[in-house]
């Protein structure tokens, strides 16, 4: 992400790693019934989400490309290019796009994930046309020089130090992902590995740009005080004039081989003062579940995660934190909004006097017990209600809605998938939830990470 604001950064992190991970394709037909969805002649997809409460718009362009599409040896190029996209074009040089956004009181930023890269501005609605003109310009006319590329490379390396190198917990997560995925590029950090980042060049960035930044690989999303006909007219005048610069290849990433081992990662650091553990399982995402004919499994996984470790009413929290007092905290989520497979992630901190090994054994025991238990109708209704309500709350924010649709469309989903999500969650049965649990809580599809103080041996 380009921008420095802690709040915006948090929001993006939440969306990319928590919000959508919790399987939250927002919906409620009452509000989003007017969503328009069409395609320009050059192949650029357009989604319009009307929200007339305030005279502002959120204008976003999403590219169907992310860190998992990077060439080998260039980890971090997707995110580096995202930063470089702010450097200028012949007609709008030297950051004049950003200056213009600021001059009309607009806010802007960009973000990169494994599956997508997106740029946005939030402005008063009368400036929408200018945003579209400027964003269209940088889709095909980016100019980079050594003078702007070199300091920006230092910036992304500082960003990596801030996010990861100063933080042992983040280092463990990075190692856990790299261990979980043998072959699929989801094992690479979006920010990149430092040794590859320092070698990223201007040419790397431009060749990546020329390969993927083309209208037929982009999605325009406009949420706010607009109507679809007006957006269509403006889009045809701006984005519609762009040539198809490239024909990006199908997004087929290397497939995972069969996993036969439970992998363990352990990080001991003098910076760590409180031990904790994390475990991730590879499971289908919304997209791969459909691709493989496993209809309904992703929706069931969403509810499964919520019931098992979603919060303080969950089975693991109630048993291990409240009753047995072996853990101080426990939580987790389902990362289901991915182009390829997703993950079930859980994390826990042991109570004083409990080792990570003891806690891990207790978690395994209680997960097995949960799979043999009965989910009552009352419990299921309660959790469904809570999960579905997230889609109502999401309607308060045009920015959130824009992100929900953008994420869905860049990870192999459709507008209709988003609109029918609540219905599909409602239809999930208790048996289906336990069935996905039994099927996917396979320890050989998982990696477990221990975070430990350097001096304290964890074995008692």
């Amino acid at each position, binding site marked *: 992400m380009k921008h420095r604001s802690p709040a915006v950064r948090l929001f993006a992190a939440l969306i990319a790693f928590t919000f959508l991970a919790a399987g939250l394709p927002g919906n409620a037909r009452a509000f989003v019934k007017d969503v328009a969805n069409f395609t320009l002649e050059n192949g650029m997809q357009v989604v319009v989400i009307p929200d007339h*409460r305030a005279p502002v718009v959120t204008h976003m362009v999403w590219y169907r490309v992310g860190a998992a599409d990077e060439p080998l040896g260039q980890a971090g190029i997707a995110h580096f290019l995202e930063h470089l996209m702010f450097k200028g074009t012949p007609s709008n040089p030297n950051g004049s796009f950003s200056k213009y956004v600021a001059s009309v009181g607009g806010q802007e930023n960009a973000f990169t994930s494994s599956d997508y890269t997106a740029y946005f501005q939030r402005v008063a609605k009368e400036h929408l046309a200018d945003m579209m003109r400027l964003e269209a310009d940088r889709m095909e006319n980016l100019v980079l020089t050594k003078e702007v590329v070199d300091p920006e490379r230092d910036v992304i390396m500082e960003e990596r130090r801030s996010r990861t190198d100063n933080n042992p917990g983040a280092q463990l997560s990075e190692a856990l992902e790299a261990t979980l995925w043998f072959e699929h590029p989801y094992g690479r950090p979006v920010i990149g590995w430092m040794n590859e980042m320092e070698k990223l060049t201007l040419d790397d960035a431009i060749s990546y740009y020329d390969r993927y930044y083309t209208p037929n690989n982009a999605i325009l999303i406009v949420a706010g005080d607009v109507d679809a006909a007006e957006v269509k007219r403006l889009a045809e005048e701006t984005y519609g004039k762009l040539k198809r610069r490239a024909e990006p290849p199908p997004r087929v990433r290397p497939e995972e081989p069969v996993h036969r081992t439970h992998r363990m990662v352990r990080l001991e650091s003098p910076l760590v003062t409180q031990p904790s553990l994390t475990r991730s399982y590879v499971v289908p995402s919304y997209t791969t579940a459909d691709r493989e004919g496993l209809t309904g499994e992703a929706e069931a996984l969403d509810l499964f995660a919520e019931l098992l470790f979603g919060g303080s009413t969950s089975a693991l929290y109630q048993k291990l934190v409240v009753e047995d007092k072996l853990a101080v905290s426990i939580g987790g989520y389902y990362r289901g909004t991915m182009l390829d497979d997703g993950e079930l992630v859980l994390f826990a901190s042991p109570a004083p006097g409990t080792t990570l090994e003891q806690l891990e054994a207790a978690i395994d025991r209680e997960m097995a017990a949960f799979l043999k238990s009965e989910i009552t109708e009352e419990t299921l209704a309660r959790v469904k209600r809570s999960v579905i309500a997230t889609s109502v709350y999401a309607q*308060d924010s045009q920015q959130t809605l824009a992100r929900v649709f953008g994420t869905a469309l860049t990870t192999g989903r459709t507008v209709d998938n988003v609109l029918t999500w609540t219905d599909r969650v409602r239809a999930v049965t208790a048996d289906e939830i336990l069935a996905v649990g039994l099927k996917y809580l396979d320890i050989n599809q998982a990696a477990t990470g221990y975070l430990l103080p350097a001096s304290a041996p964890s074995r008692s």
Partner: protein
Amino acid sequence: MPVRSLSFQALALSLLAFVCILIPRTASAVEIQRFTTPGGINVWLVEENTVPLITMNFAWRGGATQDPGGKAGVASFLTVMMDEGAGDMDSRAFQEREEALAMRMSFNAGRDTLYGEFRTLVETRDESFEMLRLAINEARFDEAAFARMREQILTGLRDSENDPQTILGRAWGEAVFSNHPYGRPVDGTVDTVSEITIGDLRDYRARIFARDNLVIGVVGAIDQKTLAGLVDEVFGGLPLNAQLTKIPDAIIPDKPFLRTAELDVPQTVIQFGRPGLLRDDADFIPAYVLNYILGGGSFSSRLYEEVREKRGLAYSVYSYLYPLDHAGLFVGGLATRAERAQEAIDIVRSEITRMAKDGPTEEELASAKAYLKGSYALRFDTGDKIADQLVQIQLENLGYDYFDKRNAMIEAVTMEDLKRAAKRLLDGGDVFVIAVGRPTIKTDG
């Protein structure tokens, strides 16, 4: 829920005072209704029926500064106990009911203020408000829940003990506020939290949860009459007057210093600052504009340009005005690799000095005004944000017409104002600096 008699309700309605004001930047649709409930509680409401939600933000003046001496962290502890059981529901029963109602309720302790946020679907409105009433009036503080939450807080504190930002924050509190309550960590320390008792939480609640220090902002699908009744149910039983300990004004160091704390991390974390202005200072708005130009603007500030854009020294560099009730501060920060920490500090100091001496350019002032005026509308584009604004404006005593006046106040700022603000805010440019990282920085004293 107690039922009010019909005759009382009829009388009560006539007492509602109606004052409406528009938020002009966000179109005529946004209209603030100010009224007083029959129970005497002031409420600001924006009725908005598009989405079937109601958001109520509220705040009590008196946050972490009201923690009893030696027990930093009481207010913060209280906030995590609010959904751990109330009335005849224990922790689990209460949280399962919250989930079944799909309501959202959270509390948060600031230095001067204790904040609450409550959101409900329209369809479960009355049941959700009743849950809020229970939490605020009848939270149980059961021993088991208390012990569990204490362990969670302690774990969080232990977890961040070696985090550079935590070490920086602690050093900052000591150096900048010394013994003033602002110097204590809001969440407390392992030592202070270990000392906190259930009695401390009860006592804090009894002193702070009152009506005369309460402000409320509501946005959503609810009318004034219905809301008045619900607000009285939730808050009407609280004592009229809070018992606030008087907090003295803090004395902020006005001499520059540079302190370092050693930590073996590749990136040095740096915070700098100096005394600032209180929110009610006549020069606050000019100082705010000045800071935007110096380090407040996201892609366009001088610090951003010099530190990040030209030299690639940091991902994040910024400054802001931090007006507390009893102290004004100017604060900034960045993080950069250890080898270049000294250089980054030197650049920040020289940019602040340059601004203090020469002030901004006419062009910078024009751009700042354009941004600050134009972006004001973006603070009002969700129900959550509007509710937050309604509460902040009341807490800062800015007046109900502030929404109307604010952009004109920005527009009225002149170069003269900025020069005066620069002199008052930056005064020659000396800042104090605290850095946490490897020992690569010369301390100057």
